[in-house]
């Protein structure tokens, strides 16, 4: 069975994400910073009449150069808890490769990179978006446990 991968560029490096979760690739979107927000979730954009959290994926991957979350492309992705927007520099045409060609990553140098694809010696990591976004939710939930546990709903 083939795996469908979208190549995305963040800070001059290429990564793959599986297309299963990708809804749309947009240009740069106007976003609003949230006061006191986590650096990984600096703000919000509007997509199809919804407020969608913006993920600074460069910072999550540990490669942010402090340029901020505004980039040339915005990747809209589905995840278990809803929709998120990822700020990226570029995207290319989707690649379909046999799943067997995706090899487990040797180490955990790149966060959330679970597999890699070797194309003529050029190795590109595959980012597990579902786990990445779940972790952001989990961390946000953990901080809520600490600060908002008494909230009456």
């Amino acid at each position: 069975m083939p795996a469908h991968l979208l190549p995305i560029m963040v800070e001059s490096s290429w990564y793959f994400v599986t297309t299963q979760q990708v809804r749309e690739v947009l240009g740069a979107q106007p976003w609003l910073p949230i006061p006191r927000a986590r650096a990984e979730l600096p703000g919000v954009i509007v997509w199809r009449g919804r407020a969608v959290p913006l993920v600074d994926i460069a910072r999550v991957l540990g490669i942010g150069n402090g340029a901020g979350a505004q980039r040339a492309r915005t990747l809209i992705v589905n995840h278990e808890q809803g929709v998120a927007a990822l700020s990226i520099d570029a995207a290319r045409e989707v690649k379909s490769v046999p799943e067997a060609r995706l090899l487990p990553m040797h180490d955990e140098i790149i966060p959330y990179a679970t597999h890699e694809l070797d194309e003529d010696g050029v190795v590109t990591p595959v980012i597990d978006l579902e786990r990445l976004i779940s972790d952001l939710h989990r961390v946000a939930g953990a901080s809520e446990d600490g600060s908002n546990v008494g909230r009456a709903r």
Partner: protein
Amino acid sequence: MKKKDEAELTFVVAGAPPQALAIAADRVRSIVPAVAFAGTQLDLRPLLPAAPPDDGAHVLVVRRDSSEVGLCVSGNLRMLTLAASSVLAIPGLLGEPSGLSHLLAPQGVPLMFVLDLARLDETTHCPWPTRALATET
């Protein structure tokens, strides 16, 4: 163009975008100078741009359970009325930690956030600090 008969919502806005805060106008009972309000004040000024030194703080008095609480803000205040379709709920992932409930986005452009007044009822974990009147001049 606005749809006919579309519901509208009005907010009191403190500050200027992008560092502005909107508060549902129907919850605001009065607006008074900060020094004139003797009740509990929650200090929202850290969320707003610095006001000119000669621009005094104001308090937006809103009801909290059985009592009233003052939301201390700085800078100019104005009213803003928007179509309900421009008022978008913020995902809990973002809104709950920040104490914000909605995003105002006329024509799909994010403009400012709305304060989550439901959080006022929290006593021990209210997201905004209580303003210590005795230490300020």
